[in-house]
């Protein structure tokens, strides 16, 4: 029993050190075990010190560019290829026929209102605000990077219901929205409930390079960029959803790709203004 307790404490200390705590913090949290813990954590420290190295920035950058270039290619090729392959399969025709029949019977009554997104109108006192921000990756290469968003949508969790709205501010310069900066592009009332996705339709991207002043080609994995994040909209608070976009160089060919960044996106809630 004692050994299991100790294993658990040692494990927790290792987790804490991995998260950035130091050995002393952990020892002071478990004074009864500190004598036994100290040499073990010292060994951990020795091993980490011996094998930890910072990979070369150039190698890492080249690997990242290769990864994003492959990712970009998949974004263009996969839907077309998979659709083509699917059409060739006879079994798919049977499934489509059944599906069409079912839709024909049920569609007019039920499906149609569900598949068609509800379009929302802006309101300054609404319970929902949508913001755009930029996670700095290769944005430093740009003098300006204007992104035009034609529509924004939210997907309700656990249903097919979608809400869409047109941004009040459609074109944004991402070079001005780096890191913690963000810009609100729409505010209005959204049906309270849980949502599982936010997506934006990008109709135009124009990037101007700092180094040459040239307009550069910025690709999109698709015209619809989406993020899968569970968030809630309520009536008694304003939910501000920040959609983070980042631009990444795809190789040494001077091309860039624009993609959503889930890590820095998300919703937060604030008390609603009164009156």
């Amino acid at each position, binding site marked *: 029993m004692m050994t299991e307790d100790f294993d658990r404490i040692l494990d927790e200390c290792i987790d804490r050190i991995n998260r950035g705590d130091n050995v002393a913090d952990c020892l002071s949290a478990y004074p009864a075990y500190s004598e036994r813990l100290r*040499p073990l954590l010292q060994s951990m420290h020795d091993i980490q010190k011996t094998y930890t190295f*910072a990979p070369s920035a150039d*190698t890492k950058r080249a690997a990242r560019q290769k990864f994003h270039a492959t990712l970009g290619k998949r974004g263009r090729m996969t839907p077309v290829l998979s659709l083509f392959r699917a059409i060739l399969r006879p079994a798919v025709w049977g499934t489509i026929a059944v599906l069409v029949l079912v839709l024909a019977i049920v569609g007019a009554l039920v499906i149609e209102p569900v598949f068609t997104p509800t379009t929302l109108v802006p309101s300054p006192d609404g319970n929902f605000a949508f913001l755009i921000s930029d996670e700095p990756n290769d944005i430093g290469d740009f003098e300006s990077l204007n992104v035009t968003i034609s529509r924004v949508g939210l997907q309700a969790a656990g249903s097919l219901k979608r809400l869409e709205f047109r941004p009040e501010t459609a074109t944004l310069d991402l070079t001005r929205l780096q890191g913690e900066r963000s810009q609100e592009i729409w505010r209005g009332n959204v049906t309270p409930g849980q949502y599982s996705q936010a997506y934006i339709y990008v109709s135009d991207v124009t990037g101007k390079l700092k180094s040459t002043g040239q307009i550069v080609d910025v690709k999109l994995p698709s015209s619809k960029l989406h993020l899968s994040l569970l968030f809630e909209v309520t009536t008694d608070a304003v939910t501000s959803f920040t959609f983070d976009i980042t631009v990444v160089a795809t190789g040494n060919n001077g091309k860039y790709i624009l993609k959503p960044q889930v890590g820095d996106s998300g919703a937060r809630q604030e008390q609603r203004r009164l009156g």
Partner: protein
Amino acid sequence: MNIGNRKHIPTINEYESRLADLYEEYYDKIARYVYVHIGNKEEAEDIAGEVFLKALKSLKSYREQGIPMQGWLFRIAHNLTVDYLRKMDKRRTVPIDSVVLVGNDNPVDTAEKNIEFERVTEAMKQLTTEQTEVINLRFLGGLTSKEVGGILGKSDGAVREMQRAAIEKLRGIMGVEK
């Protein structure tokens, strides 16, 4: 039937997006994980890059059956490392005779680092294969015991026990005071 509680199955696009997000956090950790096994930094960095490309190509076969994506990346790293070592016809752990650390430090510091590297590596060689994996994944990969258990097919309790036994063994070999 409660549709609200049904588990969301991510699409390939969502997996791609998650993989891209893991890149920054895990590239370095995977490079270090590989480095412990092969003892060559440049090759370790190349393999780390290869891990993400391989993951991208194999995303269709990835399903989260108890193993999170970062754990899956280390599994790919392990397999690529094994392939590499087979190709190089080397043994499991770092070939210390061939490893010489080169730095910008003065020669005395570099020599001390080399001695320390040999001391730790020699101790690591005394561990079992599974113990080495646990130490490597926990200390250099930064994974939790549960995640390590998912990769090795062990319970997190078994991983914790193996971890303690491995560190005690290392301490016994390396000594504490230097």
